[in-house]
């Protein structure tokens, strides 16, 4: 566990870089291994379209979003036009907007430069987001950014190597294990989101997202289903949360 000193805002403002090691330790406990195992699957896809191993590794460093990388190499393999592919990837990555905003709220500090904030934003993924929701609210503010970088950079570095590993391994993985690697993303997303749930509205948002998506897919189509699902499910859960809070009274 990381140190759970109650949050306070009295610090001089300099980050406590020792907290970076807590982030590295927490990442190596499980999350970094799961993300990096999930990214093994990107290697063979890059290999199949004839891209060099370095490009596969660079995609993990610069895209840093498993589903977008799978779409990219899968789209190239099926001969999709580049602008269409970029559009589809852009839509699939929309989740990073609300996720990164949530992370920014917890990590930003008064004198932080916008470059630092862009650097933070680049490392946001579901794994990192879920970890932030769980750990940061109870963490002292001067420890948060170093902890974040320790955690997120560990995940990214390990994943860059496993992407290369997958590239070398391509074609030599039995199908049931290949299926297992692809299943890592949904199963880990599920557990990560649920680990961050604190009260009924949180669970409601999760349940609504899961149930709404297949229904919305028919109405809104495969481009905007996730956007609509997130907006509808999230807004209903938010309104219920506000309603409960106003009944309790002063808890705001």
């Amino acid at each position, binding site marked *: 566990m990381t140190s759970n000193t109650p949050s306070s805002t009295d610090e001089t403002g300099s980050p406590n870089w020792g907290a970076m090691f807590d982030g590295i330790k927490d990442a190596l406990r*499980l*999350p970094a291994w*799961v993300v990096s195992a999930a990214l093994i699957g990107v290697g063979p*896809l890059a290999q199949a379209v004839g*891209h*060099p191993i370095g*490009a596969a590794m*660079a*995609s993990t460093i*610069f*895209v*840093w979003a498993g*589903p*977008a*990388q799978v779409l990219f190499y899968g789209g*190239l393999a099926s001969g999709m036009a580049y602008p269409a592919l*970029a*559009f589809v*990837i*852009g839509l699939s990555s*929309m989740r990073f*907007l*609300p*996720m990164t*905003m*949530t992370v920014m709220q917890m990590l*930003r500090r008064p004198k932080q430069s*916008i470059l630092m*904030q*862009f650097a*933070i934003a680049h490392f946001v993924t*579901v794994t990192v987001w879920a970890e932030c929701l769980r750990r940061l609210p109870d963490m002292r503010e001067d420890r948060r950014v170093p902890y974040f970088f320790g955690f997120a950079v560990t995940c990214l570095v390990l994943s860059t190597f496993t992407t290369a590993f997958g590239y070398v391994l391509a074609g030599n993985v039995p*199908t*049931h294990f*290949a*299926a297992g*690697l*692809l*299943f890592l993303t*949904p*199963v880990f*997303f*599920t*557990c990560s*989101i*649920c680990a*961050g749930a604190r009260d009924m509205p949180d669970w409601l*948002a*999760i349940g*609504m*997202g*899961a149930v*709404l*998506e297949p229904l*919305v897919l028919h109405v809104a189509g495969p481009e905007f*289903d996730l956007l609509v*699902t*997130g907006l509808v499910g*999230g807004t209903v*859960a938010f309104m219920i949360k506000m309603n409960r809070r106003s009944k309790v009274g002063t808890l705001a």
Partner: protein
Amino acid sequence: MIEMLAPYALMLIVAAVPTGIWRAGAVVLSRSISSQSLVFEWVRFVATALLAGVVAKLLANPSGALALAPDWGRLGAVVAAFAAFMAFRRSVFAGVLTGETILILSVYLTQH
């Protein structure tokens, strides 16, 4: 030389930029909103519902080798993962391990 760099340039323009644009946009948007604002709370709920939707989409429309898993395997594995996650005091490890075991078995059994 140019040909050697093409895969990198393509990856940056077609995949990294369309993804990074949302992260950068979030930074710009966040700067104009107070940390105490309820907007952040609403955004967190939207992100949660959206991610649950991503999971549903990945499971209902599987790609690659995952498509070889039967429907019962994918659905059963994620339900079992959730049950194990809850049963073991919200252990992500227990959840992932249980889900993976069932999914891999389901593919193996369908193929043999």
